[in-house]
């Protein structure tokens, strides 16, 4: 597969090449004080010169002192928003002369080009594939949407204060699962992208961009940038034997401690790129001529989620936090053969009270917590 280098100006022709093949281009853009994922019309919509500062329960956008286009970490939105959307109509049923007529929800998906997928998020897509496609049941909606996307990954050179992909082995360099993977090379008068094709169509897009052969120096510069990034992770998680450790400590007092802080608000699960829980809701028209079945994002932090006849399995906040964390870090291994956590740090940043999964895991391990000052940027 080709590896080439193009100038900053090459982004626009790349987006144009994507626009020829896809209905929409989704990428990072600045909105409401955050770098969100939304439709991109041109390279002017990308967050050039922007960055973010992320800490537990705190996120701020800011300016970089260069014009890097991808100089920020994972934002509030995960790509699951587009592949397993928050509200999906599964079917509609109508009464028609005494017969019931079923109509499936949207069957032809939009073709989306995802631009700026981080390595952690790429790993998350792989996990979602296992959940939705590789189990005993296939989710046809997810499958159709998934098959319709193209992926331009961007390796991570600006990890945030809550990132720990290096601990989870998912970043800062993308392994596989992309059509094209970019590494931004910026500084010393240079603003270029090293572009590695991962598929034939990725090579095709690259052909539309004025570029040159990648030299050994270019590759070395990219490798250096990524190595540096791996050393700048704001968080660390010792994943070794973590699953068993959690299973062995279901009665640890740390769960009481976190329960006292946890709001059971559900934010952590909804920002997580791999959390997939949904609820099913039926709607019927006033006159009873038609009904709809919807699938909506839910959370293991909502009480209703654990309702079975007779009561709630997880009535307390303690049992809900414990369920979430042990499922993420232990149960997923048993269920899907992988950790449910890719180390993106979203749940830490977007928890309104800054609960930190790496810190909670450390408590269970019994180690002393890292002093707060060191936690911010180690």
């Amino acid at each position: 597969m080709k590896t080439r280098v193009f100038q900053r100006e090459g982004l626009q022709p790349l987006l144009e090449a994507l626009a020829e093949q896809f209905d929409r281009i989704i990428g990072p853009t600045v909105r409401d004080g955050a770098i969100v994922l939304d439709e991109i019309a041109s390279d002017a919509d990308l967050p050039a010169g922007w960055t973010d500062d992320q800490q537990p329960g705190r996120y701020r956008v800011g300016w970089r002192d260069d014009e890097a286009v991808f100089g920020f970490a994972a934002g509030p939105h995960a790509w699951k928003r587009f592949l397993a959307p928050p509200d999906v109509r599964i079917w509609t049923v109508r009464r028609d002369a005494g017969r019931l007529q079923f109509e499936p929800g949207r069957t032809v998906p939009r073709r989306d080009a995802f631009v700026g997928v981080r390595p952690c998020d790429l790993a998350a897509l792989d996990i979602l594939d296992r959940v939705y496609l590789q189990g005993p049941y296939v989710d046809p909606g997810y499958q159709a949407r998934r098959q319709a996307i193209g992926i331009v990954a961007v390796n991570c050179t600006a990890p945030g204060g809550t990132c720990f992909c290096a601990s989870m082995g998912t970043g800062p360099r993308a392994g596989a699962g992309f059509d094209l993977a970019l590494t931004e090379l910026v500084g010393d008068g240079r603003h270029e992208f090293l572009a590695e094709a991962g598929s034939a169509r990725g090579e095709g897009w690259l052909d539309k961009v004025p570029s040159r052969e990648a030299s050994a120096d270019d590759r070395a510069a990219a490798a250096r940038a990524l190595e540096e990034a791996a050393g700048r992770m704001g968080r660390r998680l010792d994943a070794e034997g973590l699953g068993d450790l959690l299973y062995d400590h279901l009665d640890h007092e740390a769960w009481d401690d976190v329960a006292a802080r946890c709001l059971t608000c559900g934010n952590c699960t909804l920002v997580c790129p791999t959390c997939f829980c949904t609820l099913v809701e039926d709607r019927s028209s006033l006159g009873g001529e038609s009904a709809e079945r919807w699938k909506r994002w839910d959370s293991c932090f909502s009480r209703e989620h654990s309702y079975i006849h007779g009561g709630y399995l997880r009535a307390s906040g303690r049992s809900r936090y414990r369920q979430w964390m042990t499922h993420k870090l232990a149960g997923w291994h048993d269920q899907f053969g992988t950790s449910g956590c890719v180390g993106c740090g979203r749940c830490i940043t977007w928890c309104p009270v800054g609960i930190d999964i790496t810190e909670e895991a450390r408590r269970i391990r019994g180690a002393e917590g890292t002093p707060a000052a060191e936690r911010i940027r180690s």
Partner: protein
Amino acid sequence: MGRTRKPKLAVWKFASCDGCQLSLLDCEDELLDVVGAVEIAYFPEATRVSSRGPYDLSLVEGSITTLDDIRRIATIRKASKRLVTIGACATAGGIQALRNFKDVHEFVAAVYARPDYIDTLDRSLPIAHYVPVDFELRGCPINKYQLLELLSALLAGRRPSFPEHSVCIECKRRGAVCVMVAQGTPCLGPITHAGCGAICPAFARGCYGCYGPMETPNTASLGERWTALGVPPAAQARALRTFNAWAEPFRAAADAAAAAGKDRQP
């Protein structure tokens, strides 16, 4: 559906502003369907027609604030197969429950030229304090889509879907950026019952708590967060004492914050 007659709907008002009942009239696109599906037997805001009970469904707006209210709600309950409260007044006592924290007779004396004309109870209380309630629709005002969901669910004989989780879940579903995390704006969303669709955060405001407490509100933890954001205890108490001031978790948290605020006074 083999219905022989349309279910009879009645809409009643107690101490309230009428906003919730008006949500029914606000269902412009669906209003004809509503009128097609039910017989509006009593709804003075909408029609002069009034037929006697029993009613299949009574929607009750407003809180109980007078002795006459207590008698009236008992009669309505008897005449109604199902009784559903609509809005924060009927469900939690409303903004007028602020009187519950003070001596209402002082207010009466200060406001009315002839206080002796005023006959009122010491406290403004929710309907459920006096009679059994089948469902409660939260909000100030209620969300018209929840009202339609209630009506269509009851007509279809299914359980209505009213999630009791936080506003945060609605906020994230709609893709809004968290104002508390990204801007440091105090938000009541994490302890507030869903139902509005997270309107305020979507417009860069913190949640005001119109839908009252969510299923398992951790008011103490959110209070600490607000304190860290620079909101003094007295202001926290004020934020919790609005439309749902008398709802137990908000009331207890506001009392605690108010007490902490007093401690702090020099």
